């Protein structure tokens, strides 16, 4: 049978992998700091 269309391209990507591949360097991988947040 013809290839199915695989939206994940065969890779089980987590949130942080997706962001990493996009070159994002967010706080803890997926948190946007709005400048006020202090650590």
């Amino acid at each position, binding site marked *: *049978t*013809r*290839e*199915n*269309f*695989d*939206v*994940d391209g*065969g*890779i*089980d*990507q*987590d*949130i*942080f992998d*997706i*962001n*990493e591949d*996009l070159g*994002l*360097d*967010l*706080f*803890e*991988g*997926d*948190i*946007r*700091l*709005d400048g*006020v*947040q202090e*650590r």
Partner: protein
Amino acid sequence: NSIIGEEYRWPHTIPYVLDNSLEMNAKGVILNAFERYRLKTCIDFKPWAGEANYISVFKGSGCWSSVGNRHMGKQELSIGENCDRIATVQHEFLHALGFWHEQSRSDRDDYVSIMWDRIQSGREHNFDTYNDQVSDSLNVPYDYSSVMHYSKTAFQNGTEPTIVTRISDFMDVIGQRMDFSDYDLLKLNRLYNCTTSLSFMDSCNFELENVCGMIQSSGDNADWQWVSEVPRGPESDHSSMGQCKGSGFFMHFNSSSVSVGGTAMLESRTLYPKRGFQCLQFYLYSSGSENDQLNVYTREYSADNVAGTLTLVEEIKEIPTGSWQLYHVTLKVTNKFRVVFEGVRGAGASLGGLSIDDINLSETQCPHHIWHIKNFTQFIGSSSGTLYSPPFYSPKGYAFQIHLHLSDSTNAGIYFHLISGANDDQLQWPCPWQQATMTLLDQNPDIRQRMSNQRSVTTDPFMTTDNGNYFWDRPSKVGEVAFFPNGTQFSRGRGFGTSAFITHKRLKSRDFIKGDDVYILLTVEDISHLNSTAVEPIPTSTINDFCVNFTCENDGICVVQNGRVGCRCPSGEDWWYVGERCERRGSTQDTIVIAVSSTAAMFVLMLIVTLVSVYCIRKKYRSKTSSNTADMTLQNQHAF
């Protein structure tokens, strides 16, 4: 791991906007995620209507959110490409509600070890912890199965795990992105003082003798019995499959004890709907006559009918015998009601009867179809692990099939196929914006504790394949020939889905496989109405419309200022309207005329004044001269 400070809390009902930048599938997935919040927590969502603060979900780059309510009016939350998975949306909204990641708890090192040398350089800060001055774990133990926990491979610089759990069994549990865990819900409900939920109504596993407050009806021929096994089956309950000695109860109607047509009715406690639509789920076991049937009624009460009106909702016949079967019944009740289960003895011999267990009632939509796969385990990782569901029809009439791909070594895949069907000549092609939601059911007896794995795909009518065809065009045109098990030929369109639906390890965990049965719940919805979702807010403050009975003339516009009504009058280059209702017209010619006439008037006036003054002066002078001459004696009347 929740941020400390009341100022970070959202109201229990969060205003939101689904920005039009979002992909269609993402919009549907976000609304499904909201339903999970409504079922398991007291958090609700409502379209933004001008409230001061709201969450704007848009298609940004990646998946991210701020932590807590930032009181910034429009607080953005990004569900970008590949973020359209329901648990990803749940995760990002937990951030917005005030939660950080689970492994950043202050006591994290008691439970996991961070392998610093395996983290990508420059990303180490992502594994910092908060101290308990700024982060509150809400008195809930460390949660390996939190939807907010990093996976073992987060930010790895190679192939070795960056997080190692001190209890090794949890190595492959951390990083689950299926649903809220029990502790996720405990924390969220504690943080927001939840005591109820919008859509959960009841769950009953019959473990307690009070049988969840269910009552036996009068006027029937027998009672339902509270038992833990039946000689002719089932040998055990469905809740724990007989794995717990001394427990495992369910309700049984012994149809062999009554004659054909004999009944036994079991009624739920009184229930109070809020949304007007409900989904009733339960497991049913038949061991009596194959013609035994279960009728499901609602008894709805109203002020003028205290006994309640009994309405037959569904007749469940031809119940497969010898195993627990999952059933869903859709209810549409708006008033106080009970659910009534009526067992009916059917024709033919009966040595057993009907048994019912794990009843759940919620104000959610029932799945459209159920794909029940028996003897499931044998297919995992085997070459025969390519399973196709029976054909189903969506509410719009599209025929479809699900393909479950289990023969891979680590992951199970799932794909949605359109297939040729009876309605194809009347349907729109390519198939527009039908969202297929495929759910691997976690068969936990309590719907609130289920962590079902779900993926949604949406038919984009504009999507093309490399050969230029439309992907979702009519299967008989772009599909391939296939055969049903009974030999019937049909066309099957190309599959659309994911090879990474769930890992085999997770598939074998929880209650996804129960009694070697698996259930895939299927819903195919038309989501074309979501095409444009960013709506103008409806102002919350009511405007007294003084202008209703105040009219302005000559296209004047009625305005209210400082509580007073008036008109803004039109004007042009050299003309204008004036007056309370713009009734008088003015123009620059008028000005000229006025200027000229006033000038003329002024001139005439001045002339008159002048003339009068001259006259008066002359007259005065003349009189003076005459009086002088009269008084003059001529002294010398003589000339010299």
